[in-house]
């Protein structure tokens, strides 16, 4: 019997929601790491019992947590599960994210643009997104604020920056969005282990074709009226990028404003906002089995971060964009003013495809029929930061 495990990160802890394949009755465990901001949790596709979590705090900084038993117990990589470590030198630096410096001068690799246009040094704040390798449970990528990409190949014990991204030349033009200068999206290509896409607010989308050594911006076709040159090579506030693994060259993007599509691995983009009531938003995801079926949650505007007209509506396109239908059955259609953040939507692999999202009001909604009908799994969690799903067959 198949199962699904929904991993929910919130402002005040993590929650794990489990159900069988019917997805109508749910067990809720948590809060795990109570009181901490849990930006993201994600399971390894190569070993579903291996789950990584980003635990963060304005007071105490960044902590990486790992479970090897499907979320029952957790430990910081390098320390024994659930136990204080024996005296002696630290066995890992699982929460050390040190930016690379110039090998020639020892000085910082570069600076980035600050809100006021001046240059500002990179300062590590937190891990926004964890992306486990598709094939190796011990290899995992971390997208961090200030924007950079790190990789661990020892199960999260030690991290190394893939500094070709920050250092390729456009770094001084990157600037923080309202949420900070964050690398929030990491997409791995199942057909080509050398290819990775990432996205940064507010710099744009980037791609490597050599396993992370070299990178280039892939923002042709994006237009952003809020930057001096609307067609600039970098500076776009990309909110999220999604891909169906069966079609690695086709990408869908929710930009600050505009829903975009690329059919050439990001080399060029075209707008597919179509008949959406507003094309501002954060999340975007793709149906597990229908690569032309995509989902967004339109948000009213960049100054009013809640759903349009007080109605919580997921919009679905079955045509890869442009033609959208509102999905409302089971969702509040009056007096609703929640937001859905960029990592807070996910799909499962079951047939019919399940779709899940979490809100700033603490609800996690699930649809077991690809969005036709919805029901809350939980209603009163802390504000939801991220939702991921594991399909356990």
């Amino acid at each position, binding site marked *: 019997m198949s199962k699904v495990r929904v991993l929910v990160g919130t402002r005040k802890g993590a929650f794990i929601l489990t159900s069988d394949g019917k997805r109508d009755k749910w067990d809720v465990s948590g809060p795990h790491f109570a*009181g*901490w901001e849990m930006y993201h949790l994600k399971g390894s596709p190569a070993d579903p019992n291996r789950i990584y979590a980003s635990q963060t*705090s*304005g*007071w*105490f*900084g*960044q*902590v990486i947590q790992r479970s090897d038993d499907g979320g029952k117990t957790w430990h*910081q990589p*390098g*320390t024994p599960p*659930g*136990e*204080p*470590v024996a*005296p*002696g*030198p*630290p*066995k*890992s*630096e699982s*929460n*050390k*994210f*040190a930016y690379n410096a110039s090998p020639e001068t020892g000085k910082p690799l570069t600076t980035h643009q600050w809100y006021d246009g001046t240059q500002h040094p990179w300062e590590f704040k937190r891990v926004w997104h964890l992306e486990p390798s598709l094939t190796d449970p011990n290899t995992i990528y971390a997208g961090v604020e200030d924007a950079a990409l790190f990789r661990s190949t020892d199960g999260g014990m030690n991290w190394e920056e893939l500094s070709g991204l920050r250092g390729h030349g456009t770094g001084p033009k990157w600037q923080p969005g309202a949420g900070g200068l964050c690398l929030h999206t990491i997409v791995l290509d199942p057909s080509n282990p050398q290819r990775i896409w990432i996205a940064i607010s507010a710099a744009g989308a980037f791609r490597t074709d050599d396993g992370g050594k070299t990178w280039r911006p892939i923002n042709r076709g994006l237009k952003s009226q809020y930057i001096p040159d609307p067609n600039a090579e970098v500076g776009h506030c990309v909110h999220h990028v999604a891909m169906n693994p069966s079609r690695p060259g086709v990408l869908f993007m929710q930009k600050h404003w505009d829903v975009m599509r690329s059919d050439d691995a990001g080399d060029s983009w075209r707008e597919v906002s179509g008949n959406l009531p507003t094309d501002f938003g954060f999340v975007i995801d793709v149906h597990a089995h229908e690569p032309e079926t995509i989902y967004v949650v339109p948000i009213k505007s960049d100054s009013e971060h809640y759903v349009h007209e007080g109605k919580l509506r997921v919009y679905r396109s079955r045509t890869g964009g442009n033609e959208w239908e509102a999905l409302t059955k089971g969702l509040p259609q009056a007096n609703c003013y929640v937001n859905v953040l960029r990592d807070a939507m996910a799909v499962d692999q079951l047939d019919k495809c399940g779709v899940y999202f979490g809100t700033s009001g603490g609800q996690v909604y699930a649809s077991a029929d690809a969005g036709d009908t919805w029901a809350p799994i939980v209603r009163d969690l802390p504000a939801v930061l991220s939702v991921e799903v594991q399909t356990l067959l």
Partner: protein
Amino acid sequence: MVRVILPPHLRTLAHADSEVALEVEPPVTQRSILDALELRYPMLCGTIRDHVTQNRRPFLRFFACEEDWSHESPDVPVPAAVASGKEPFFIVGAIAGG
């Protein structure tokens, strides 16, 4: 033995009680106390001091003998009462909330 009082979240991370006792070689300074603490509880590395700069994290404060030591040099010897274990060394989260 130097006694250190940890804030609640760090107790959870360290799987420790609120007060931990540490062997610290004299001269006992804030730096040597934190070095000993991180040696005993490596999971606290980076949570009190920045990994790279070793600076105190901005929302944490240090107190000893009812005085704020947050802005003292980390290499200044702490009061004798702390070094002897008569008084604890406090690591406190800055107050924020409403």
